[in-house]
């Protein structure tokens, strides 16, 4: 991250946004031309190298993206479901194989077979309608999945009438910021994007940070393959999110809210765009909101395909049109965020809870859940369940209940649940009974709640192949900044590949060293997090993995340096 580029991009800010401009230049052919980049650089008083650096980072703007027409999902759920090879083959009968690209997780994990064509997502049954889709006769790829709550309904409940909301917001605008902040702090609401950090503390830092210009940024980059609960909010309950951002904006004194939505969710982009327009029409966005002195502009930013943009500092760099490399903290975004200004970055689901807290009070929210995990959590279950879908449960609900009552058991023989995305833990099915759905329970058992997406790893899917997939995912998505992740993810993938396909066994000490190096040495949770599922696998699936390691010994006993 370059402070200079932040400020230069910030000169034009959100109105003439550098990242969007790069995106527009890529729209024509899939990647911006060098001439266009040179002109754009001049406008922004920088040099084209920086812009080329940015464009070449993203899946959907880099030179290799030129000429791609169809994108097939290669996320974990579609992978283990085994739908994608067949799908690619069928698509190949309609479209040149060089024109087929890949996307990582379209959020169709409940039915798989996902692909993207000309701005629309398709999955499940669509594979059977390929010809019509390619010929543009069929453009409706709408999917359906079960949504249900077991306990309090905060996020799954229908949005109330606008009159009611407007009245509540009128109240809000007359309440001192500190009062709202107190209530949010009392709620104990913790971030739903993975790290579980209390939003109240971040809001307080933002509020106290110097400067008049502040931002709220919603992280709607839901990149974890297997998760689609943010997608649910973005498409089915967008009002919860935007009103939540408005509340946050008022509380910290921000002037603008950015919703950064991943390109893999075209329908989400549409609903957010529409909802922003509705808010604007109702004077709930823009200048003088409800006649007050509070101004709050919404800005929708369409991502361009990079998992790491879900990491907050990379996300901010992305909005600025810089290469979305993770940056060091401090300074934290709450003091120096977007364009160097104090910025509150939160996940979709986190922000969507704020209206409930505003209207019911922080206490009411804090009463829900268990211990330091308050409120409810959305869980997404993939196609390995009999009843896949998005479920709202009180924090602390037994995992067993989620699997059996909501998911109604497995749709196929399943040996492990990968919970919380690729960086989450691999829970062997026999451990399900030991877990309750909250941050603490998962941490204590050596797993991670994360964003609470659940992907079932089938009995017959080789664990070694799944681990290789995880390394490959990390290698593909690594921003490349820190040495352990950039190099380690590739070496890890190579080791596991070689062990499967060549006469080669892995030195367990080397593998252990690699995991420790990534775990302790990585700058962010991508490189730092991927060893967790690896270690879970080594602990719980030793027998399956034994053959790939020297002397059949997958777990090394650490030796002295």
């Amino acid at each position, binding site marked *: 991250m370059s402070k200079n580029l932040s400020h230069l991009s910030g000169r034009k800010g959100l109105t003439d946004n550098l990242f969007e401009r790069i995106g527009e230049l890529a729209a024509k052919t899939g990647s911006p031309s060098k001439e266009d980049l040179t002109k754009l650089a001049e406008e922004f008083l920088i040099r084209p190298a920086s812009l080329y650096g940015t464009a070449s980072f993203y899946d959907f703007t880099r030179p290799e993206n030129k000429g791609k027409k169809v994108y097939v999902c290669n996320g974990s759920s579609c992978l283990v479901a085994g739908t994608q090879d067949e799908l690619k083959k069928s698509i190949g009968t309609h479209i040149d194989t060089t024109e087929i690209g890949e996307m990582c997780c379209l959020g169709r994990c409940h039915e798989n077979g996902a692909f993207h064509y000309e701005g629309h997502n398709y999955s499940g049954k669509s594979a059977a309608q390929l010809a019509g889709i390619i010929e543009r006769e069929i453009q409706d790829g709408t999917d359906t999945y079960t949504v249900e709550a077991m306990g309090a309904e905060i996020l799954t409940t229908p949005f109330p009438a606008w009159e009611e909301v407007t009245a509540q917001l009128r109240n809000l605008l007359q309440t001192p910021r500190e009062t709202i902040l107190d209530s949010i702090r009392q709620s104990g609401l913790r971030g739903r994007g993975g790290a579980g950090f209390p939003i109240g503390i971040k809001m307080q830092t933002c509020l106290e940070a110097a400067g008049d210009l502040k931002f709220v940024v919603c992280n709607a980059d839901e990149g974890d393959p297997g998760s689609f609960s943010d997608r649910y909010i973005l498409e089915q309950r967008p009002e919860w999110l935007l009103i939540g951002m408005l509340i946050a904006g008022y509380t910290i004194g921000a002037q603008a809210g950015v919703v950064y939505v991943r390109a893999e969710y075209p329908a989400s982009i549409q609903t957010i765009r529409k909802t922003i327009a509705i808010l604007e029409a109702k004077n709930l966005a823009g200048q003088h909101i409800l006649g007050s002195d509070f101004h709050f502009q919404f800005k929708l930013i369409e991502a361009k395909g990079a998992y790491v943009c879900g990491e907050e500092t990379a996300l901010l760099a992305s909005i600025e049109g810089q290469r979305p490399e993770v940056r060091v903290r401090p300074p934290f975004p709450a003091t120096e965020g977007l364009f160097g200004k104090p910025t509150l970055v939160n996940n979709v689901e986190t922000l969507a809870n704020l209206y409930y807290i505003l209207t019911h009070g922080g206490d009411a929210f804090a009463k829900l859940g268990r211990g330091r995990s308050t409120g409810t959590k959305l869980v997404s279950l993939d196609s390995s369940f009999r009843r896949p879908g998005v479920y709202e449960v009180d924090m602390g609900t037994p995992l067993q209940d989620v699997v059996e009552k909501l998911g109604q058991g497995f749709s196929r023989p399943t040996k492990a649940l990968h919970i919380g995305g690729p960086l989450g833990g691999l829970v062997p099915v026999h451990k399900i009974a030991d877990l309750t759905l909250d941050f603490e329970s998962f941490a204590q058992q050596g797993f991670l709640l994360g964003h609470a997406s659940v992907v079932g790893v089938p009995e017959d899917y080789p664990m070694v192949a799944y681990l290789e997939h995880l390394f490959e995912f990390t290698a593909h998505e690594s921003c490349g900044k820190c*040495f352990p992740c950039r190099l380690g993810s590739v070496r890890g993938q190579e080791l596991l590949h070689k062990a499967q396909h060549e006469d080669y066994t892995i030195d367990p000490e080397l593998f252990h*060293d690699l995991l420790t190096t990534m775990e302790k040495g990585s700058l962010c949770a991508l490189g730092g997090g991927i060893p967790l599922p690896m270690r879970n696998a080594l602990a719980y699936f030793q027998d399956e993995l034994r053959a790939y390691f020297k002397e059949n010994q997958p777990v090394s006993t650490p030796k002295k340096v």
Partner: protein
Amino acid sequence: MNKIAYINNKAFEIKEGETILTFIRRHLGQNYVPTLCDAPNLEPFGSCRMCSVEVARPGNGALKTVASCHTPIEENLQIYPDSESVQHLRKNIMELILTDHPLDCLTCEANGDCELQDVAAQVGIRKVRYPEGRNHLDRPMDESHSYMRTDLSKCINCSKCVRACDEVQGEFVLSMAGRGFDSHIIKGLDTSFADSYCVSCGACAQACPTAAITDIYQSAAKHATDHTRTVCTYCGVGCNLEVASHGDSILSITAPYDAEVNQGHTCLKGRYAFRFYNHPDRLRAPMIRKNGKLEEVSWDEVYDFIAEKLNTIKSNYGPDAIAGISSARCTNEENYLMQKFIRAVVGTNNIDGCARVCHSPTALGMQRTFGTGAATNSIDDLKDTDCIMLIGANPTAAHPVTGAKIKQQIMKGKTLIVIDPRRTDLAKMAQHHLQLKPGTNVAVMNLMLYYILVEGLEDKKFIESRLDGYEEFRQQILNLDIARLERECGVDRNLVRDAARAYATAPRAMSFHGLGVTEHYQGTYGVMLIADLAMVTGNIGRRGVGVNPLRGQNNVQGAADMGVQPHQGPGYFDMHNEGYRHMYEEVYGVPMPERPGLKIPEMFEAARQGKLKALWIMGEDVVQTEPNTHAVREALKSLDLFILQELFLSDTANYADVILPASSFFEKSGTFTNGERRVQRVNRVVDPLPGTKPDGQIVVDIMNRMGYPQPEYDAAEMLKEIAQIVPFFKGITWERLGENGLQWPVAEDGTDTQILHTESFKIGKGRLYFVDYEESTETRENGAAFPYILTTNRELEHYNSGSMTRRTNDALIRGEDFLYMNPEDAAEKGIRDGEKVKLSSPRGSVSIRVKVSEVVKPGVLSSTFHFPEVMLNEITSSVHDTQAKCPEYKVVAVDVAREN
């Protein structure tokens, strides 16, 4: 009680805000913790993770691994910088690095001078256990550039080069491209170095821990037997250089990170343009013109010849028939000696220097308003200012390291006002660019003053307590004819008003000016108005404010300080004052001349009139650099004796009767004073080139020949004499100057001064002067026949007449002078880009190649005069600043036409 933290259970004092890495290094040494992506002049980045340490917070006690370079220190933190786990981690990271790095250290050009190698040794890497996998070892080398090189197969992706180009130079030539394992360094749009926007500052090459980015000299540095710290000879920024040498060969130059002036940075001139020093063209023997031809002679012969000739002229025509022009390229001590020679040995005040043609109006204008003709503040103040006003200066080309620093501040959000007829690189970044007609600075300044006073933005308290003559001044400003000024300068008055508001309302505003202010008919007045602006807004005497001339040559400040001007001796004492003369006489032991001396233009005039018979020029190519070449040639031809002391045979040498081969700054010691009054030590790197002598030694030799006993040239000894006379040098000794020099005035106890006029001005209260705008006689008289205005500028790669830089690879980067012309004018005249045109003025005409560019407005042209092939000064005018006699290079009435 001081706050502490623990390293391996031992308590050490912490400093607020430092990182764990700085903390450890401060106590246990620079190399205690290995790093690969950290550099003293770059922000913490956190990519290599080599600096990892284990820490435990008090109370909770759990050990955690953190990267020390970007983790702030905390009170009572327990740090274990070399625990077993940390050692293991570092080794394993190094092993990963080596899976994608060539293992041919022994044949690598960086062998022995490679951070990666050092760190690998420090962490004790054993063999690489990973099987061979994907790698980037087959990347091709790039040898396209005159100085810069890449071999990216050796790149370890630390991004230091990218950050150096961004955070230090501000050029954004480099970037990472791609993602993850595929991420790689690119230049420009993935082009070669030569095709990129690289300005060859070398910051990336210095930062690179391996041989992935280097320059053509770097790899030779490992053969160095000596490393000498000295000061760049080119511009007034005064960058410190670390010169690696072997015997009499200079191998390579880097920038010391601990240099207060340049913190590890230079421009290409300082870092790379050094090969002139042993160029075949260097003069290697004294010469005397015999039968019209210069012939090599011995030093004895030349000294005898000079002494005898000067003595004869002196006895026949009196001492005032002799004059000397000293050099701002030479050391303080040498300038001091030259003026001493002219005054004490010859007995005349006919001593002047090249400051005449650049910043003499600054010295005069600031002396009149503040009492001291020098920058009021320091470059470091840039960090604390809120608004920068740049007038008639293009520092990214002419003062590159300061230019880069200004750019950094602007990119961090500070306000920039540029007043310049050219749309310079910084003007493009400015919030306010007043693109005035050349020669109308005074009109614009007056407009600014008008709006400040009309809108009540003046600093009343400052005016009340620190200034004289405000009420009268105010009335004069308010009576100005605004419409006329607007018309004359060609800038919309609202734009000027906005700039005036920005300057006046900034809590701290700092102005910088260059030759675009001084080299004018109203040069001195322009400077005085800049001072007025600073005074009425209270921007004087604090950090982050002031009036700061960007001094052109390396030692132009010093030459003036040393008395290189006819009216004032060393320390600026008036030669017409008997008391002061007496003071000099006490030290020199001979009577001092009282009669007023000649300024450079007056010397030429006197020569043409036959009144001046002998001239000694130390290191200046007046034919190429003085305006109106024809008149200069006439003057030189009229002399009976013309002595030229030089490094190379310049055009001026064609007229010389005697040539004295001097040594370059690499070959001698002394001091230079930079633009912020910082006196710094110049240290001899190599012995004088055989056959040459240091300028100071030559002057000493002649003094002795002419009967004045003067000890051998020795900088430290000379400084002692200077400190006796020059009050602001009182506390300066060679030893005290140390590595980073001292900023004058230096008190007897050695305390130096970053900011002038903090309590009061040298003249008590500051003086406000009112001057109205008056058009230059050049355009008034010649404008009708020659409708375009030519203004002169500088290019980054070359220095002044280019005598040194043209003899380096800089000439491969830029090999000729160009005429910049607006596309509208080009279209109207049917002139195409790259075509040669005839550029004519009332003095004559030259042939020059055109660059069609938006850098100038229609009606305005601009060019450099670095190359003798064009001899641009054939057409510049003889108009001078009415006060300081500085030539008006910046306004020349010209016409332009296609050739043939």
